[in-house]
């Protein structure tokens, strides 16, 4: 549905996007996720046409739209702070795009009525946007885009100005609306929870390039780079290095845990330094009799979190965090024996 071919974008010599290739399929919910300033909003704006690319091509439904004005692209954007027209009523806001397309009045009325019903705002059609609550404004902004039945709907951090509770509810609503309308959604956010809960696929962007693209599960369970592992979820990191090679696999040693692992070779070099990662939930307290795949940490502090407790302990210079569902009370520097499963290790290059 949307294809970016080696797209770059410079602002005054500063490279914001450094060559992005991306294909987005029809009807999918794709999220561009990354820290602020990584270029994710710029990627979105090259698709809407609000930003011209420096080099590269943008295809929409197979057609090259690289040099097409935003008015002529069959995509619509939901802006971060909604950008509603406060001088017009809710209904006028929603009709705006249809009128610009010179659609017949009967069709405009039908579509507007339908969408107002879908977002449950029939009673507010004559209200001005600045008289509405944040959630209502959000819905109107969404309706104003959706009513045009665009091929792609672009959403630029649309939930960032809402409070936590409303944000959670809107996440569900957004996903439902996307399923119902079957419109391709491209969603920009810096919030990993939003990305994980709504997306079909996530593209992690850092420093103007895509670090990894895949389903939320793939991204969380099999991060390919240290950045992705760090950005999505919490990571306990252990230094490792390549010891030897054997029939397509590499033997690596993790000194802190005193263990040697065999992993598939990924063109590693001899002595290359790697990072082995365990998620906090993959570490737990071991019984005193267990001998293998264990290590000891000194208890530092714990963070009570409702149904579970996160415990921070120290292993040499590393802080290790793990989760327990039991009620435990420990004094500082008590030794705790922890266990893990070597199959859980995620191995990434250290750079």
């Amino acid at each position, binding site marked *: 549905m949307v294809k970016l071919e080696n797209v770059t974008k410079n602002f005054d010599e500063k490279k914001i996007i450094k060559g992005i290739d991306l294909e987005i399929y029809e009807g999918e919910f794709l999220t561009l996720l990354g820290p602020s300033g990584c270029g994710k909003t710029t990627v979105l704006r090259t698709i809407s046409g609000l930003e011209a690319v420096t080099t590269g091509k943008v295809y929409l439904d197979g057609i090259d739209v690289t040099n097409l004005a935003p008015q002529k692209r069959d995509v619509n*954007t939901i802006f971060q702070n909604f950008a509603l027209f406060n001088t017009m009523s809710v209904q006028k806001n929603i009709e705006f795009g249809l009128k610009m397309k010179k659609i017949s009045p009967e069709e405009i009325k039908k579509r507007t009525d339908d969408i107002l019903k879908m977002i449950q705002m029939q009673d507010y059609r004559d209200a001005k946007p600045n008289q509405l609550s944040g959630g209502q404004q959000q819905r109107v902004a969404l309706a104003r885009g959706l009513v045009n039945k665009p091929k792609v709907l672009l959403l630029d951090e649309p939930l960032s100005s809402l409070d936590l509770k409303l944000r959670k509810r809107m996440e569900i609503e957004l996903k439902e609306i996307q399923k119902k309308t079957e419109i391709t959604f491209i969603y920009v956010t810096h919030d990993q929870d939003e990305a994980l809960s709504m997306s079909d696929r996530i593209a992690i962007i850092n420093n103007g390039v895509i670090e990894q693209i895949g389903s939320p599960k793939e991204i969380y369970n099999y991060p390919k780079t240290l950045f992705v592992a760090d950005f999505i979820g919490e990571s306990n990191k252990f230094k490792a290095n390549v010891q030897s090679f054997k029939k397509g696999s590499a033997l690596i040693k993790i000194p802190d845990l005193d263990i040697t692992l065999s992993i598939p070779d990924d063109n590693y070099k001899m002595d290359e330094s790697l990072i082995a990662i365990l998620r906090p939930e993959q570490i737990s307290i071991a019984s005193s009799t267990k001998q293998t795949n264990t290590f000891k940490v000194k208890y530092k502090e714990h963070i009570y979190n409702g149904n579970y407790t996160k415990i921070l302990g120290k292993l040499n210079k590393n802080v290790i965090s793990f989760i327990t569902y039991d009620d435990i009370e420990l004094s500082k520097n008590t030794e705790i024996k922890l266990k893990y499963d070597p199959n859980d290790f995620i191995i990434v290059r250290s750079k």
Partner: protein
Amino acid sequence: MKKKIFKNIFIILVFIFLYLPIIALIAFSFNDSKLNIVFEGFTFEWYKTLFTNTTLLESLRNTLIVAITSTVISTIIGTLAAVGLTKYNFKGKNLINSLLYIPVVIPEIVLGISLLSIYTLMKLDLGLGTLILSHIAFSIPYVIISVRTVISSMNWQIEEAAHDLGASDFLTFRKVILPEIVPGIISGATLAFTLSLDDVIISYFTTGPGSNTLPLQIYSMIKTGITPDVNALTTLIILFVMIILFTSTIIQVRKIKKGYRV
């Protein structure tokens, strides 16, 4: 408590100072004495003779023609300029921006004599035309400042939103940006209109024979002898200004109060 009384008295005294000459004029407009000196009794006579004083009425007409024409033109140019100067960058933009402050800061007399000089250089006949041109000259910067204040608090994303929804640059300007800045345009136009009505100094230099505005007419009358119907006319003007200002203030005060409820 004592402090509060002192403060209120101070405020009242300032207002007495501000209104004293106006009240004097209003009172004398009902004075039954031709000499305009001592108050002798109540009369409406001067309001009647006012409507037969053709010189005075003609100068009032000139004032209104100049004020309305210059307000309309300077509001249009000023509004376009405020949007253009915020939206676009171009060579010499800084020069234009600094030039715009000149009519605001330099003494009016300097603007007056410099306009007079170029009109003479260009051999323009001094009259209503040059008056209107001069009033446009000092009004435009005030309109730009008024509109720009509103623009600077505007969310420019709505412009992109309109483009995104398929509106051309022209339609975006007309349907989205213009309605958004209407409050600034209104206050700019009001300002231009009142500045034009109030102007003495620049008009003094740039008018020609036979096109006196009301202030200039009164200026020459004060020197040669003023008739009481001038008091009647000024009373009517003051009333007119008060009504306009009060309605606009009441609307604004209501808005402020509404703002508290929401």
